[in-house]
């Protein structure tokens, strides 16, 4: 691992997350042929950078995210976070560095917003822990950073979907991670809440220098907010690059199986529109 860190720094001092020729195969039963394979995928994420992983359903986006999170072990290749392989880290040490924002399981018992955000402090310290004043300060700051401090004393099940996603993001910030992973964070949000959420994320990424990987279906939001996009289809990584370079009409039409136009705008951010089928 030490060597990996040195190699990485010689190549590019700035890279925080390095996905190197990572592949994966999933089969429900070891004796059978895998029903899903991810072919060698590589990309890098620098601090302060947002990378969006795009693709249709079953393209392998979420698999990539779970591999990065260390929840799955790559079949080949390796995933290095500051030089250390993520799936080899201890769960607690990993959670001090990597935070995940995802669709939440339903809460079994009601919880207050502040209780929920304090969960983010769990990886720091012993297994049985009582939160101290530092934890409270960090959680309060996290809520303020996502603009949700007015929700502190509300119940989790009485706030709106957009507010909930902000609170979940606040819990991730309370982990004080270096890598932030988001799995379809805007899935159930209306368009205003989507833009609000990504705007906040963009600002925080710049301020706190997180490395961010976000999995999403939203081509235009990714085009607007991501520094790089990774385009995937059926377990293959097709392109990695800036939105402007990856958003080619032919390519997107072939990947998403629909007719569309791509407008390259002056700010360098492409805009995608779906065309009505002509028949």
């Amino acid at each position, binding site marked *: 691992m030490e060597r990996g860190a040195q190699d990485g720094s010689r190549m590019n001092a700035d890279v925080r997350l390095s996905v190197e020729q990572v592949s994966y195969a999933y089969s*429900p039963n070891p004796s059978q042929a895998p029903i899903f394979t991810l072919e060698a995928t590589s990309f890098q994420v620098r601090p302060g950078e947002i990378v969006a992983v795009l693709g249709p359903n079953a393209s392998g986006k979420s698999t990539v995210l779970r591999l990065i*999170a260390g*929840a799955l072990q790559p079949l080949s290749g390796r995933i290095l976070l500051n030089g250390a392989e993520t799936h080899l880290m*201890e*769960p*607690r*040490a*990993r*959670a*001090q560095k*990597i*935070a*995940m924002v*995802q669709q*939440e*399981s*339903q*809460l*079994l*018992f*009601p*919880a207050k917003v*502040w*209780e*929920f955000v*304090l*969960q*983010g402090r*769990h*990886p720091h310290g012993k*297994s*049985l*822990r*009582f*939160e101290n004043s530092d*934890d*409270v300060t960090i*959680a*309060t700051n996290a809520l303020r950073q996502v603009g949700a401090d007015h929700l*502190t004393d509300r119940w989790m099940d009485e706030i709106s979907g957009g507010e909930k996603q902000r609170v979940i993001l606040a819990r991730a910030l309370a*982990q004080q991670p270096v890598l932030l992973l988001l799995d379809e964070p805007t899935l159930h949000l209306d368009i205003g809440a989507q833009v609000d959420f990504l705007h906040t994320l963009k600002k925080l990424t710049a301020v706190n220098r997180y490395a961010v990987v976000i999995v999403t279906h939203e081509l235009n939001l990714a085009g607007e907010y991501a520094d790089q996009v990774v385009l995937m289809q059926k377990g293959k990584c097709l392109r990695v690059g800036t939105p402007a370079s990856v958003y080619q009409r032919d390519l997107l039409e072939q990947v998403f199986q629909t007719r569309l136009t791509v407008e390259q705008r002056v700010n360098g951010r492409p805009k995608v529109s779906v065309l009505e089928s002509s028949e």
Partner: protein
Amino acid sequence: MQPLTLSKVAMRCGILALILFVVVVIALKFGAVPVSLYGLAKDLIGLLIGRSSEISSEYGMIVREIRLPRIAMGIFVGASLSVAGTSFQALLRNPLADPYVLGVSYGASVGSILALIIEPHIALRPELAAVFTPLGGFLGAILTITVVFLLGRYRGEIENRTLLLSGVIAGMFLSAIIALLITMLPSSSTRGMTVWLMGDLSTPMPPILGWVLRTGFFAGFALIYLTASDLNLLLAGEKEAMHLGVDIRKVRIVVYLAASALTGLAVSVSGSIGYVGLLVPHVMRLIFGTDYRMLLPAAAFGGAIAVVIADTAARTIAVPSELPVGAVTAIVGAPLFIYLLRRRLA
């Protein structure tokens, strides 16, 4: 933002301990021989702080030799069942989980009965004979939870609904085994056994067993309590807990084993006392909230209080005969359970 602190937990536990003490004093008073409450409390406090070693001689023998050991057993049995139920509810993310639903109690019963049947046929040293039945119950509980655990796995992961159903089916199967064993036994011993199956604290416990029960409870409780923060996150969801640094596999194994051991110990000395592991955690949640760092000790005290009260009722309601304590907890517990269930749905 006012997170739970250790001193808050300690203070609330102090209040619960006080309530338990009052309940114990009242429970000591009830019985065929009348005893003065004031004198009892004074003597007990003296005993607790080590100032005197004597309880007034008029009723000392009855209180010390009969009522107090029985109440002590009730305390540890109740606390064990309640803590086990609280733990299973977090592990399975199901507020209806308890040692009975998972079949563990039935496994413990089968183990105890088998031990009772075998015991006369093998020559055991007396100190081993005393713990032979509880050992059977303990092994029965561990064996059952292992089988239910394996049946509840799907693709190497625990699937909660499958696990719960496996527990229910295992419980039915084991009840049938119990019925079979009882019909095979000579009729002279079955009446005692039926009472025992319904939960019974009247059989005096050899001192060594009391020691095993106490030590087992404190060890099991400590193991589970060390995972209290992890259990809080597990309640929020498994994938969330994993990403927040919980070693899910380890927590599961530790808590499963410890909770099963607590159940095995409790059932093997007292028989089946139902509803304690299900309802006490519920009531404690209503009072103290869902944080396991507070809930686990509250459940321990609550279980102890509930069983001591139920047992006092069992031995005084129908004087001169005694009811099985499990019948009392079931008569009170079932309607209360329905009430809480309806409340949840509403």
